[in-house]
């Protein structure tokens, strides 16, 4: 009996040795998610997916890897280029694996951990699951989760990386999506001139013209472009003339509620200087064109948000040329060059 116990203990000891060796592989370095002082609270629940250096780096590799698409050539970054606030530079609509053209303008990837819903009409209701939409869309990456997982499983570098980033070390959809979320959660843009002015950092001041623009903005724009995320995260119909070729009904497509016709999510204005073209279909090439539209281009498409109703019954936000110039000056203070050139998010 005694011998058996001793043998048992020796056997146990050997096992614990091999366990320790395995544990060596999974020793992730935690990464802190800093919430900027002038931001609202995080929406993303980090308890379910704590960010680690290894997970973040894996997410970045996935973000820049064309193998997530059917023809191995269209990575996420194809439509989300860093220098343009992770939008598709200059494209109103983007093309995907089969030469198909998408329906909407690609949106910036920044400060997503502070948002409840994603996509122009809120079709994505969890950040982890959002990548499934472009990944499987035939117009975009045209892949399936099982195919992508199989491709990653045949790559020794990914096998290593998943092992060091996740406790179970599995290459599966759960861990792949978690890694992508970790990368996106870290993509916080909060160091524009405006932010530094707001937080009274580095003695940054705004010019009289920019301050004037800020005052106009607060008076005429900030009820929708609210908080320092510059969106109240609601869906609104802003009176764009309907493009009959696309006839994109926006949020209506989800709940089929007539009250949602032509509603789109109020976009953030961070890095708006770089995220052109504008609107859900990228119809405006410049900010000047956007301001002109709000001043004099809105049409009654049947469901325009009442916030745009002027006292005389017409639709729009009246802006004089001086006001437009001041607004433009202010909007340029939202450009965050630290974010746009941050090497942590760069491919190379």
């Amino acid at each position, binding site marked *: 009996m005694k011998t058996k116990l001793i043998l048992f*203990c020796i056997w*146990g000891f050997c096992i*614990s040795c091999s366990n320790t060796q395995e544990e060596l592989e999974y020793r992730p370095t935690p990464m802190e998610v800093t919430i900027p002082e002038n931001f609202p609270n995080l929406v993303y629940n980090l308890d379910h997916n704590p960010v680690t250096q290894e997970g973040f780096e894996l997410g970045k590799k996935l973000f820049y890897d064309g193998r997530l698409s059917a023809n191995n050539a269209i990575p996420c970054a194809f439509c989300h280029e860093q220098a343009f606030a992770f939008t598709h530079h200059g494209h109103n609509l983007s093309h995907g694996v089969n030469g198909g053209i998408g329906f909407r303008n690609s949106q910036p990837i920044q400060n997503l951990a502070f948002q409840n*819903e994603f996509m122009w009409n809120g079709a994505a*209701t969890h950040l982890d*699951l*959002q990548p499934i939409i472009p990944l499987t869309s035939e117009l975009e990456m045209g892949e399936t*989760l099982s195919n992508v997982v199989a491709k990653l499983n045949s790559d020794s570098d990914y096998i290593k990386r998943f092992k060091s980033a996740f406790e179970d070390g599995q290459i599966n959809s759960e861990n792949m999506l978690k890694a992508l979320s970790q990368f996106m959660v870290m993509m916080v843009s909060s160091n524009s001139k405006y932010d530094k002015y707001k937080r009274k950092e580095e003695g940054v001041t705004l010019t009289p013209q920019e301050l004037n623009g800020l005052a106009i903005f607060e008076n005429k724009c900030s009820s929708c472009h609210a908080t320092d995320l510059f969106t109240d995260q609601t869906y609104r119909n802003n009176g764009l003339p309907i493009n009959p070729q696309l006839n994109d009904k926006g949020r209506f497509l989800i709940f089929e509620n007539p009250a949602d016709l032509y509603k789109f999510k109020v976009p953030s204005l961070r890095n708006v200087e770089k995220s052109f073209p504008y609107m859900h279909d990228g119809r405006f090439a410049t900010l000047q064109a956007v301001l002109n539209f709000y001043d004099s281009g809105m049409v009654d498409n049947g469901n325009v948000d009442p916030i745009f109703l002027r006292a005389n019954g017409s639709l729009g936000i009246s802006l004089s040329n001086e006001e437009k110039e001041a607004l433009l000056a202010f909007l340029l203070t939202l450009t965050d060059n630290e974010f746009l050139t941050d090497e942590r998010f760069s491919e190379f």
Partner: protein
Amino acid sequence: MKTIQWALLLMLSITILSCNKDDNTEEDLTGQKGNLVIKFDNGVGEQDFIYGTSYDKSNGESFKLEALKYIISNIRVTDSKGNTFMYPSADNVFIVDEANANNAGEIWITLANVDAADYTSITFGIGIDQERYALGADGQGNFLTEAQEAGMLWSWATGFRFVRLDGTYSSATVTNEPLNIHMGSVGTALDNYREVTLSFPNTVKVRENKEPEIHIEADILKIFDGQTSVSFDNGYSQVHTDENTTPVIANNMKGMFEVHHVHNE
């Protein structure tokens, strides 16, 4: 280190178990676990479900299906003393797919390591509840992949199709028009998760050496002719995330399940 503790624990428990053997006069189920099989058997009214067969609805419309599947989750069973055993959450989500049925038309779900007890009722959810959805990718393992392969994930939005009925329907005015019932929830805005509780006709005895079977009949007709009778011609031939039609389908599905019988072996 861990292993030594386990080894000692194991040896200790073996000792305790062998000591206990003598005074085992009445059935002590403490620590005993067994398997429990749940068989889903899809039918339409009084008939078995068969792909491509035309079935009539109460309003004269008829339908044929090529795909029939739904998500079942959060299965738990309650015993005669009122104790509830919840199957471990991470594994407690299943796609019941007619395509996986055996020759008798049954889709089997086997729950392992269920606490031994005399169970009197079962509760389960249809679809994915808010709590599970809020976990995002966490705890999903490969279920997202599995769901996508089964066509139970939306592609144009995030989230799960709780049910998937694909086929055609005919009415007084149309013949063989597409029929697609893909009801699901949309984030927190539209919650179509529903739960059902069914009593067993006799107790289900889960034991280490017994594998009882619960035979559940699912009447697909009730999805259309249930609590509310719906008309394909009138907005119910395409049901996806519409905030008016999806809850009607979800509520109808609550009434489609019935425990036909149980086997204790």
